[in-house]
């Protein structure tokens, strides 16, 4: 594959028409990019728009939604023609593991048949979707069904479930196994990008570790690009190489997970880390007072203003924009290997905070 990144999301917006009139601006200009084999975390709390963002990317939003922006898979914008241009890529190039997918398995069908189904419908091996599609109407040939079943068995093994167990029903599987089955189903048509929505949230910590391990292994062995959507910072820190923190529908900081923790630039990111208890540190665990802003009204100034502990004058009138962060004194950040002072773009460490820009400007003048 040539030059550009595998997945590029540019200025993604999503609105929902509200019942009594009015609109909810759920996603407000999300941009990021991924290479093959890269694991990217989309972190935020409930209502920040992270799930809506990936649903918008897959074209799975309900009829009262409208979307704008670009989603480029290997250069081509799949969002350009609406549903018709997204559908051929859905599942075959970009697949999703939904929140609570482990509970969304069909209880009256065996696990292996549910994994074989998308293979039969979309044509599995090595296609971008077009060739090898099953005819629209009913009948699938025996040979095709048999090969789909075999492929499904291979997928189960790939995610750590013995293929023989596939002929059981979902209720006979434990929670962790069901989550793996959901991941196998998403991988059925060999997508290049996997979007995982809270894959470990409902699981025990031991099973969570198994799934985290699985996701890392899949991205390393298959070259799968992974977008991990979660509220759980430690999971992202251990699984992903880069991450974006979302608040009120927009990204407030993006960077390597190392930079996000060791060279935090946005107050929300900092407060979020401070609110996450650590096993071995005695640091006080704090909470962030207040609630996120309503997204059905336009916001002036910074959306985080009411809850921020480091407000400067500009925050009230001007909405901050994601800008590349300047290099800090290397010693202060412990010789971090982050990409400092990159030209504008979505690679590298960017943050949307007036105070940060102010501090950088001051530091530049008086080193």
């Amino acid at each position, binding site marked *: 594959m040539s030059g550009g990144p595998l997945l590029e999301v540019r200025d993604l917006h999503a609105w929902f028409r509200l019942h009594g009139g009015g609109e909810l601006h759920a996603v407000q200009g999300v941009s990021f990019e991924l290479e093959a084999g890269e694991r990217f975390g989309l972190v935020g709390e409930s209502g920040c728009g992270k799930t809506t963002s990936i649903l918008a990317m897959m074209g799975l939003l309900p*009829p009262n939604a409208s979307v704008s922006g670009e989603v480029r898979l290997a250069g081509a914008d799949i969002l350009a023609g609406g549903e018709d241009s997204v559908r051929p890529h859905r599942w075959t190039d970009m697949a999703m593991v939904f929140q609570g997918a482990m509970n969304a398995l069909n209880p009256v069908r065996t696990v292996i048949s549910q994994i074989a189904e998308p293979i039969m419908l979309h044509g599995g091996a090595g296609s971008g979707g077009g060739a090898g599609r099953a005819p629209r109407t009913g009948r699938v040939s025996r040979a095709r069904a048999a090969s789909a079943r075999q492929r499904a068995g291979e997928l189960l093994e790939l995610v750590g479930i013995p293929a023989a167990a596939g002929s059981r029903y979902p209720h006979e599987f434990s929670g962790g196994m069901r989550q793996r089955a959901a991941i196998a189903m998403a991988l059925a048509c060999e997508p290049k990008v996997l979007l995982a929505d809270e894959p470990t949230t409902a699981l025990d910590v031991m099973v969570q570790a198994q799934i985290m391990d699985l996701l890392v292994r899949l991205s390393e062995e298959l070259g799968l690009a992974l977008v991990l959507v979660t509220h759980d910072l430690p999971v992202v820190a251990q699984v992903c190489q880069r991450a974006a923190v979302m608040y009120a529908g927009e990204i407030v900081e993006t960077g390597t997970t190392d930079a996000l923790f060791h060279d935090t630039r946005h107050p929300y990111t900092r407060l979020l880390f401070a609110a996450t208890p650590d096993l071995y540190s005695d640091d006080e665990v704090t909470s962030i007072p207040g*609630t996120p802003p309503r997204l059905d009204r336009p916001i002036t100034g910074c959306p985080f203003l009411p809850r921020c502990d480091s407000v400067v004058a500009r925050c009230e009138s001007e909405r901050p924009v994601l800008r590349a962060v300047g290099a800090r004194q290397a010693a202060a950040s412990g010789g971090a290997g982050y990409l400092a002072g990159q030209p504008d773009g979505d690679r590298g460490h960017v943050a949307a905070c007036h105070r940060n820009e102010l501090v950088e400007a001051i530091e530049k003048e008086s080193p």
Partner: protein
Amino acid sequence: MSAIATEVGLAGQVVRSRAGLLRQAILERKAASLGLFIIVLFVVLALAAPVIAPYSTTARTCAVFAPPSAKHWLGCDDGGIDMLSEIISGGRISLVIGFAATLIAMLIGGGVGIVSGYFGRWIDITLMRITDYLLVIPDLAFAMVIADVWGPSLSHVIAVIAILEWATTARIIRAQVMSVKERVYIKRARSIGASHARIIGRHILPQVGPLLMANTVLTVAVAIYLETALAFLGLEDPTTTTWGTILEHAFDRAAVSAGAWWAIVPDGLVITLLIMGCFLLGQAIEDALNPRLRVAHLSARRWALRPLAGRGPDAI
């Protein structure tokens, strides 16, 4: 620091309280408003019956099967009694029977459903076997036997309809109670030490109330229908005037062969209209209460694509 927030779910819908949901369901759906209007109209007419009926329903005021005319808008029946007056007065009695029977059926059915669903185990088993028995009995055959044994009378008709109707309600309410019983706030109330009576009265009944209401409206429709059927089969007191007995008299006295459609059709029409009104309203309430019945996600419409976007109010 704003402490109060309205919760916004993923789909961007503002979550409303249940009372609001009901009002919204009725006011927003034209069908439901229509249904409510029809019912209210009939109730008002029934209450005003003695005042607005043009002629007496006992004294003969015109010729046998006289056709509709300026003086008698709907003509007359086999006994020379004005049809319009009969229908208006008959509606009064029919509605009384319908509402009374439904009320009794709701009280019994609701009570049995709540007790059965809440206490479970052998109480549930016993009550449900009785309910099953009543559900299985063919309505009209049962009605005919009872009418034969007890003799035709208004109160007997009400009783028969009530007996036939409470079983369905009991089952529906029981299912709802069984699911509400598992909710965490019920368990919390139990762990505080709240008595069964308190939990049923303060927590379960309000949850079950709307469903009971939907069911009541639908049961009224069935009660009206059953009353008509019972009367038509000759199981009602022939001296009373109800919509059913009007029909019964008409067919009995060969109105069809006499070509006297006005003795049959208007009556059938009002029955149909009321039943339809009840159904429209009842279905709308049920729809509002049961999100799973909503079929919006099956619509052919899709999410829309906006060509350009930017920040600020002048964005497209």
